[in-house]
């Protein structure tokens, strides 16, 4: 198998499809033409994610979306309804449990049973594959707003078949972003291939005039990932998706914590995305900002501070939507009440900020310029490695550590990066490993970290990184000694 960035023929897709649908009995329920009719006839325009995102983009507002999923249908519907009415969620999620993410449908089944017995969700998400198409439709039909599948599944082919047939209109993930942070032993080649399937499926819906949004998972490991690293991944996944016929793409980024860097990141994400996708027609690009994805403070009041700071940044950066954390983040999957609290705090901030001017200035310009230069240096090298083929380039780039993600569990990730905050809290490269950076970029990061080292009278090293990882949980941004 040599994975190339070429649109799959319908035959190739349909052949693989037969196998995919046999992975678990609920696969039998899926009939593509019936599913398309279902989307056409049963979904109102307000239930389609891409429509809602397009509106927000035009009105320049930032929509809010939680994460949420429990084991059983009724409870899941109740949860989502609650987040919509009591939390004011504009968009809804269905977070998939971790067994399903690893294609352990057997264990997911056990989790469903145990949840029934214990009277509480024993799964950390909604096992959509086990529940099947009709149950998914029950969820969709109960809700007036668009619902997205959010997961972390390296091989999400069956999950995509079932949930899209089930009426979901947005599907998160990608061959890199749902592999490297979420798997240990799965090759990049494998996941790119499997995600081409998902994208081809979405492309098929698009061909038939339906809008299904796709969203590469921006934050990756959520832990000190510099913007250029996640931007590179997001744009590669967008290119791979567009090739398979995906038209509606939301590019993601996880808050680093420094306002200027984060605003610059959202701006450049959209700008770079537009630039790199210029060859594809009719693409709608939107952005998603993830509130702080690393370790949270346990105290709920402090957590509200972190949540609100994320909301501020999302609004000032004018992201199309923001994924919201909850005051329970450090402790466990939130209750629906805690989840709604995170949403309401966020909405309050977004609403207070939505009319405010965005700010400019030199610092922002510099930050944007650097992110763009770094991302281009990475992406150009990736394309070069693949002789113009981004799929091949990506596979080789991971092998050589040209693409590399901090703190990732995957053995297909070089793991040579070390990142830490500079003296202003922006995330910089302490070791840039094999990232193909020019001297200018390397110097920039070095200088920034030396500045901090000087301020703290210590050499930038792993201890500094550890301190930064704990910092927000302990109530700081920069982990000072």
């Amino acid at each position, binding site marked *: 198998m040599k994975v190339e960035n070429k649109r799959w023929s319908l035959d190739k897709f349909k052949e693989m499809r037969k196998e995919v649908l046999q992975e678990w009995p609920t696969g039998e329920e899926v009939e593509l033409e019936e599913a398309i009719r279902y989307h056409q006839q049963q979904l109102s325009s307000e239930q389609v994610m891409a429509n809602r995102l397009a509106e927000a983009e035009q009105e320049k507002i930032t929509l809010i979306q939680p994460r949420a999923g429990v084991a059983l249908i009724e409870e899941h519907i109740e949860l989502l309804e609650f987040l919509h009415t009591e939390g004011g969620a504009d968009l809804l999620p269905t977070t998939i449990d*971790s*067994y399903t*993410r*690893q294609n*352990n449908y057997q*264990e997911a089944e*056990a*989790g469903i049973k*145990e949840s029934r017995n214990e009277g*509480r*969700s*024993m*799964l*950390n998400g909604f096992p959509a594959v086990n529940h099947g198409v009709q149950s998914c439709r029950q969820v969709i039909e109960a809700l007036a707003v668009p619902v997205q599948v959010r997961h*972390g599944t390296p091989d999400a082919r069956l999950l995509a078949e079932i949930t899209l047939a089930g009426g979901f209109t947005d599907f998160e993930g990608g061959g890199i972003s749902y592999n490297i*942070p*979420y*798997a*240990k*032993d799965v090759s990049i080649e494998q996941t790119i291939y499997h995600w081409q399937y998902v994208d081809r499926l979405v492309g098929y819906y698009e061909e038939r005039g339906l809008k299904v949004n796709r969203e590469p998972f921006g934050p990756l*490991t959520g*832990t000190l990932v510099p913007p250029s690293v996640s931007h590179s991944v997001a744009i590669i996944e967008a290119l791979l998706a567009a090739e398979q016929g995906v038209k509606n793409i939301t590019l993601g980024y996880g808050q680093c914590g420094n306002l200027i860097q984060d605003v610059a990141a959202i701006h450049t994400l959209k700008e770079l995305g537009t630039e790199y996708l210029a060859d594809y027609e009719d693409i709608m690009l939107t952005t998603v900002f993830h509130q702080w994805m*690393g*370790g949270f403070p*346990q105290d709920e009041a402090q957590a509200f501070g972190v949540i609100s700071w994320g909301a501020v940044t999302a609004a000032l950066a004018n992201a199309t939507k923001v994924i919201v954390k909850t005051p*329970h983040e*450090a*402790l*466990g*999957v*939130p*209750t629906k009440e*805690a989840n709604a609290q995170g949403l309401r705090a966020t909405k309050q901030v977004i609403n207070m900020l939505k009319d405010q001017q965005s700010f400019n200035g030199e610092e922002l310009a510099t930050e944007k310029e650097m992110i763009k230069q770094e991302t281009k240096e990475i992406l150009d090298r990736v394309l070069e490695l693949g002789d113009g083929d981004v799929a091949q380039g990506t596979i080789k780039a991971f092998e050589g550590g040209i693409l590399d993600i901090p*703190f*990732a*569990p995957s053995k297909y990730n070089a793991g040579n990066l070390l990142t830490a905050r500079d003296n202003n809290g922006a995330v910089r490269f302490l070791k840039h490993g094999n990232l193909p950076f020019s001297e200018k970029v390397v110097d920039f990061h070095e200088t920034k970290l030396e500045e901090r080292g000087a301020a703290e009278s210590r050499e930038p090293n*792993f201890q500094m990184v*550890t301190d930064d*990882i*704990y910092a927000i*949980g302990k109530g700081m941004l920069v982990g000072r000694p």
Partner: protein
Amino acid sequence: MEEKTVVLGVIGSDVHAVGNRILEEAFSEAGFEVVNIGVLAPQQEFINAAIETDADAILVSSLYGHGEMDCKGFREKCIEAGLEDIVLYVGGNLVVGKQEWESTKQKFLDMGFDRVYPPGTLPKEPIADLKKDLGIEG
């Protein structure tokens, strides 16, 4: 001190790698021989690693909420494998949701873990405990 070996890993379908990485650094620096089997580790892999390296302790992490299901029968499996005396610690976000800590702790003690650690535990605490439990002079 005589070098003691600990096996470290994140159990089940759990991929949270950051705490694991930090525990590795911290236990190594504290003088332990660390065998880190990483994330997505089934019970059997912990046990195999412990047998192979003649380990003194196994430190199980579970962050993602399925810890209760993933850890069932772990102690029994160790005994079956001949690891009668091995020290077993578990820590992380052990159950789904924010729950009363005492009952969660009891649940895992009942499963046969020697010590159970709540979310947010810093490495120095289990390091001190393990030194005590293995009879190492501070």
